[in-house]
């Protein structure tokens, strides 16, 4: 059964209502747009919630008829909703690596962390050729260094071994 429209509609309704509720306390005309945008969001979320409820009721009716006829085809059709995340393990690995990368960057330094991040995530995502991983990591980091440190002189987190 697909609850997505219903839940996303409710989420937007909550965001809209919260915006209006918080917006009413803003100073004078600074409140107009928050209240207006929140109210409109609430209004536009209603058709979505209505559609969600309708589709759930239709799916329920279909499930009942499936139970009655008990055919496999009907059952498959009633439950065919694509997953929200295709591959949770890879998804979580990528997100986890990103969080560690961002946390380590100011401590370890930009170039070192980035080199480690590229190599580690590539291996975790299934790249098993050490020469390719090392070559691309080195080439990419050198390119970034040449551009950001040498040419543009943009300040990036300093390497731990260079920090005084």
């Amino acid at each position, binding site marked *: 059964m697909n609850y997505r429209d219903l839940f996303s509609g409710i989420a937007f309704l909550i965001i809209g209502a919260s915006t209006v509720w918080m917006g009413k306390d803003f100073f*004078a005309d600074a409140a107009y747009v928050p209240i207006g945008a929140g109210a409109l969001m609430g209004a536009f979320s209603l058709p*979505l919630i209505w559609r969600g409820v309708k589709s759930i009721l239709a799916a329920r009716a279909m499930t009942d008829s499936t139970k009655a006829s008990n055919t496999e085809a009907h059952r498959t059709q009633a439950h065919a909703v694509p997953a929200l995340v295709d591959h949770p393990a*890879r998804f979580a690995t990528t997100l986890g690596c990103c969080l560690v990368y*961002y946390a380590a960057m100011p401590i370890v330094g930009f170039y070192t962390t980035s080199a480690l991040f590229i190599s580690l995530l590539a291996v975790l995502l299934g790249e098993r050729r050490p020469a390719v991983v090392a070559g691309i990591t080195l080439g990419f980091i050198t390119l*970034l260094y040449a551009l950001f440190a040498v040419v543009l002189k943009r300040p990036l987190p300093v390497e731990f071994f260079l920090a005084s």
Partner: protein
Amino acid sequence: MFESLLNALPVALQFESLISLFVGTLIGILIGALPGLNPVMAIALMLPLTYGFDPIIALGLVAGIYNGSMYGGSIPAILLNIPGTPAAIATTFDGYPMTRKGEGGLALKTACWSSAIGGIVSALALMTLAPMLAKVTLAFGPAEYFWVAVFGLVSIALLVGKDASKGMLCALLGVIIGLVGVDTISGAERFTFDTLYLVGGFELLVVLIGLYAVPPVLEMAEKRNESYFNAESFRVSPGGGALGLLRRHWRTWSRSSLIGVAVGILPGAGGNLAALLSYNEAKRKSSEPESFGTGNPVGIAAAESGNSADNAAAMIPSLTLGIPGNLIAALVLGALMIHGLQPGPQLFTRAPDVVFGFMWQMLLTAMLLLLLGGMVATRLFAQVLRMPSALLVPTTLVLMAVGVYTVNGNVMDLYVMLGFGLLGYLLNRLGFPLAPVVLGVLLGPMAEQNYRLTMLIAQNDWTVLFTRPISLGIVALLAAVLLSQLWKTLRQRVRSAAHSQQR
């Protein structure tokens, strides 16, 4: 005027000037292609270095960087779904789907030609219509800007994606995100939750990269060894040729270039608005609007010619009236002042070679894009897709991190980018279009500020929003878009009802 224009041509064609155009365009393409770096930053960094040069050489570099970056922004937009510059948002809609279908080469070529054509039309408008068009900008007050912002927001929310209510919800979400921070008129804090980070509001580039670039990278990571890009059929030199492109896109190029010029002369309305309005118009005029967003090259042609046509046109109010329409125009005025030239109407009589020479340079750099864009981008950057996806994921994430970090030098921006990335991923999976969110962040504050300014000036008399002729024209256009959308929806319902009855 035309005599001065012709006299300035040899100045623009001097060897040193040509070298500055070449170098500027190359730098511009590179700057545009790297998310986080923008032409404003590049020009600001470079202007002090040109202090000892002839003004025409300094302006040549500016012209090259400006035009080059507009095209450069489309390269990561097409190849990686990362808009290199905010003006490249609309290019991602069809550019990235084309890359995934194995038509990345054609997408880059279309973007290159479209940018060049838009730039050429814009430069011609600057050369021929500058004084006349400058007067138009004076007729635009806050009420007109308010309606321009509302028109952009509503029409995109309705026309991008299949579901109008989802589009509107996303646009409103963008407006609310854009409200975070200190209110520029009253100085009051809104939705900051007493957090110092939120006082300045969300940085546009952080929101943009998070919403647009993170979701496809996460999808790429999930698919890992499966073929994410159709790299086998990726053609570096796609067939068809320039004549084929011209035959296919001349209508779109003409329409979008005119929209770009019109938006360009309005101070404050940037290339992103020009690109989105052009895309919107191309979709509305198309006989197969449903193919937009799935990899239709017309979408790229519209977006790229629209945003590039904004470039030279944005210089019209600054060169003729001394009012800079955007940050780059302000920097051009700064460059002129560094070299002892006072911007304003008298500039045309005091230094005609420099002003008209700069106009020629804008035209020449737009033409140079065909050579450098085709050579550098299509042949070099396109090779990115040949990288294994397990390596493309982390390198793209590092590129995003460096791009976002260099904006404010704040690591918190990286977490915010990831947060917006997850939001974008979720919205994508739930069938919500992302373009209206970004447009809400961009146009929401513009609409709000101009609405409040209008009310302040008119002493809360709201009828002023409907009584000025230009405002009324934009309202009529908005009503036409709403009615045409309503008509389409009703027709679809009648058709589907008839179809189900037949069955």
